[in-house]
C-alpha cells in the first residue's frame, strides 16, 4: 500500500467525522438560505436568491459586518499588546515565574458566564467597584454606565473579552519566545545592543511566524465570539454591539426568520473561509521565503 493511501486511511475517520458535524450543517444552512423558513420546524418554500438579495441590499448585514471588523481589530490590538507584554515578562527568570505562568491563565479558564457576572457587577454604577475607584482617582465625577453609549459599550466589551483571552495568546507567544535561541541575545549584548534594539532586531522578527498564526486563529475565534457580547449587551445599546454572530442569532431566534439567518451564516462562512484561505497562502509564502 502506498504511503499516501495509508495516510488517507488514517485520517479518513477524522475527515468523515468533520464532514458529519461541519459539512452536513453547512449544507443544511445553504439549503435553508434558498428557502423562506421562519420558525424552526415550520415549512418553507424555495425562493431562489431572494434572501441573498435582501441581505446584501439591506443595511443591517453591512453594519453588523462593520462592527465585527471593529470588534476583531480591537481585540487583536488589545490582546496582542497585553499578551506580548505578559509573555515578555514571563520569559524572564525571576522567583515564582513558574507559578506566574500557571496563574496567568486563570481568567481564560473561568467560564464565560462567570466572567460576565463578575464584570457586570464590577462595572455596575449602583454598587460596583470600578465607578467608586474611578471617582476617587478623579477620572470621573459621577458614576457612568459602561454599556450606556455606543462607543463605551463596544470598548468595554473589547476590554473584557481581551482580559479573558489574552492569557491564552500570551502562552502561545511565550512558547514562541522560548524557541528563540538565547545565543542570539548574548551575541547582540556583546555587540552593545540595548533592550529595545534586541527586541526590535531579534524578538519581534523571530516572533512573526507565531504572531501570524495567532493572527489567523485569533481573528477567526474573535469573529465568532457570541457569548460574551450576548450576555453583556445582547447587541445593544441600540444595536451598537450587534456583530454578525449576534445578528444571526437575533434573526433566527428572535425574529423567527431562520432562512435569513442561514443566509447571513453562509455569507459569513464565505468571508471567513476566504480570509483563512488568503492567510494560509500568506503563511505558506512566508514559510517558503525562509
Amino acid at each position, binding site marked *: 500500500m502506498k504511503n499516501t493511501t495509508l495516510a488517507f486511511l488514517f485520517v479518513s475517520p477524522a475527515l468523515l467525522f468533520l464532514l458529519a458535524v461541519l459539512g452536513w450543517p453547512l449544507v443544511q444552512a445553504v439549503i435553508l438560505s434558498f428557502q423562506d423558513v421562519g*420558525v424552526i*420546524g415550520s415549512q418553507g418554500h424555495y425562493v431562489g436568491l431572494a434572501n441573498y438579495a435582501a441581505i446584501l441590499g439591506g443595511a443591517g448585514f453591512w453594519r453588523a459586518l462593520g462592527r465585527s471588523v471593529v470588534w476583531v481589530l480591537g481585540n487583536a490590538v488589545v490582546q496582542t499588546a497585553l499578551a506580548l507584554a505578559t509573555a515578555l515578562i514571563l520569559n524572564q527568570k525571576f522567583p515564582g515565574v513558574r507559578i506566574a505562568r500557571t496563574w496567568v491563565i486563570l481568567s481564560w479558564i473561568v467560564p464565560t458566564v462567570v466572567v460576565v457576572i463578575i464584570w457586570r457587577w464590577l462595572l*455596575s454604577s*449602583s*454598587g460596583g467597584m470600578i465607578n467608586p475607584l474611578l471617582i476617587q482617582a478623579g477620572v470621573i465625577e459621577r458614576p457612568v454606565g459602561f454599556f*450606556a453609549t455606543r462607543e463605551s459599550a463596544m470598548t468595554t466589551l473589547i476590554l473584557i473579552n481581551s482580559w479573558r483571552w489574552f492569557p491564552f495568546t500570551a502562552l502561545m507567544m511565550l512558547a514562541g519566545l522560548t524557541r528563540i535561541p538565547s545565543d542570539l541575545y548574548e551575541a547582540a549584548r556583546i555587540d552593545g545592543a540595548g533592550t529595545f534594539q534586541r527586541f526590535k532586531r531579534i524578538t519581534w522578527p523571530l516572533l512573526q511566524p507565531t504572531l501570524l498564526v495567532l493572527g489567523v486563529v485569533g481573528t477567526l475565534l474573535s469573529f465568532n465570539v457570541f457569548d460574551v457580547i450576548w450576555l453583556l449587551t445582547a447587541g*445593544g*445599546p441600540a444595536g451598537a454591539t450587534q456583530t454578525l454572530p449576534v445578528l444571526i442569532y437575533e434573526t433566527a431566534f428572535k*425574529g423567527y426568520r431562520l432562512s435569513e439567518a442561514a443566509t447571513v451564516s453562509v455569507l459569513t462562512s464565505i468571508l471567513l473561509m476566504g480570509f483563512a484561505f488568503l492567510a494560509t497562502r500568506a503563511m505558506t509564502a512566508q514559510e517558503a521565503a525562509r
Partner: protein
Amino acid sequence: MGDYMMKLTKFLTLAGFAATLMTGTAYAAPVDLTLWHMEQPPHRVQRMKELLDEFNAAHPDIQVKQEPQSWGEVYAKAPAAFAAGNGPDLLFTIPDFTTVLKGIDAVVPVDDLVKDLDAKHGFIPATLAPYQYDDHVWAVPAYNMAISLWYRNSVLKAAGVEVPKTWSEWQAAAEKLSTDGKYGIGLPANKQLYTDQTVYSVMVNSGAADIYKDDGSIDFDKPATVNAYDFYSKLAKLSPADNGSWTWGEAEACFASNTCGMILQFGVINTYDTQAEGDAADLGVAPVPHADDQSESATISYSNAIMLTTKDEAKQAAAKVFLAWLLEPANYGRFLTMEPGLFLPVTDDGAKADSFWNDKTVTKYKSQVETMVANSHAGKLFGFTTGKVFPSIGAISAQNVIAETLQHIVVDGQTAADAVKGGQARMSEIAKK
C-alpha cells in the same frame, strides 16, 4: 420422575402467571408527562417538585416530571425540540410565546378543559383573554403578574413627598428623591423584555395600550405613545447610569440596597424580605401613576399559562387531570407561593384560597399583595388588547422593539417623536414578514 414433572409443571405455571402479571403491568404503566417550566430559581424548582411528588403519589397512573428551562433559551429551544419530536407534553408560556408555538402547530386547544375549570374556579377574564383567539383557547392560565410602583414609606416621608398618582407628581417625587448617591427612580433602558414591560406600563397610562389596529396594521405612532416615551426618557435620566444593561435583578438590587427610591417591578417582596430590611410596614406599593390627562391607572400584566403540547390522547387526558388538580384551591395556593408575593391568582377561588393567604410571607405582606392583586385587574399586555391577536406580536415582542425604540432616545439622542416613528416602521416591517 413424576415428582420432577410436577415441579416443572408448577414452575412453568408460575412463570406463566408471572409473565401474565408482567404483561398486565406493562399495560397499566403510568402515563409519563414531561413539563417544561421557566421557574428556574432553586426554591421554585423545589416547590414544583413537592407539588409533583404529591400529585404523582395521589395519581399512580400518571407521572409528571419537571424539566426547568430558561426564558432566555426557550424561544429557540422549544421550536427546535418540537421539530425534532422531543418537545414536552406541558409547557409554561406567556401570550406572545403561545403565538410562536401555535404558528408551528405545536399547541393543542384546551377549550373544554378551560370551560370546565372556569365553571368550577372562575377565571379572572383579563388572565384568560390573551389566550383566546382564532375560535379556541390555547392555554390554561396559571398565575398572573402585574407591574406596580414600589417604594419605601420612610424614604418618601423623609423627602416630604406623597405617593405619586400622576406623571407630574411622579417626576417631582423622583427628582426630589435624587440626592447624592441615591437615584429617585430605577428604570431600565436595556433592549430586553423588562424594558418592554416598564415602557408599556407607562404607555398604558397615557392611553397608548393598543399597538395594533383591528385590521392587523401597526398603531404605534400616535401622540399618546410619543408622550409616554418622552416621559419615560425623562425618568430614565434620574436612574442609575448603567440602566442600559439592566434586567429585573439589577432593579431589585438597586431597590433592596436603598439606592433607588422607587422602581417599577412585578414584585420585590421576597428580595426585600430576605436581602433588605424586611419591614412590612415600610414597604410601599402603588399603581403605576397615570398621565395627567388620564383619570385611572393601568399597568402591564402577564398571565402565565400552561400549554398542552402533546398530540397523544392518553397524555392529553392525563395532562388535563394534572391541570385540574393544580388549580384546586388546596393545591393552587402552594403553587402560587413558590415565589411568595410575585405570582398572583388567576381564579376567583384561588384569590380566596387559604393555601395562598396562609403562606408566611404572604401573611406578612398581606396589604402589599392585596394591592398587587388589585393592580393586576387593570392589567393589559401589548398585542393582546383589541380582542384580536396577530402572529407578528411574537416577533415584535421577541425582538424587544418597544425597548429598542427607547434606546434610540436615551442612547442616540433622538426625539421621542422620531424614535416612535422609527418604532412604527420597524414593527410594520416585522408584521409584513
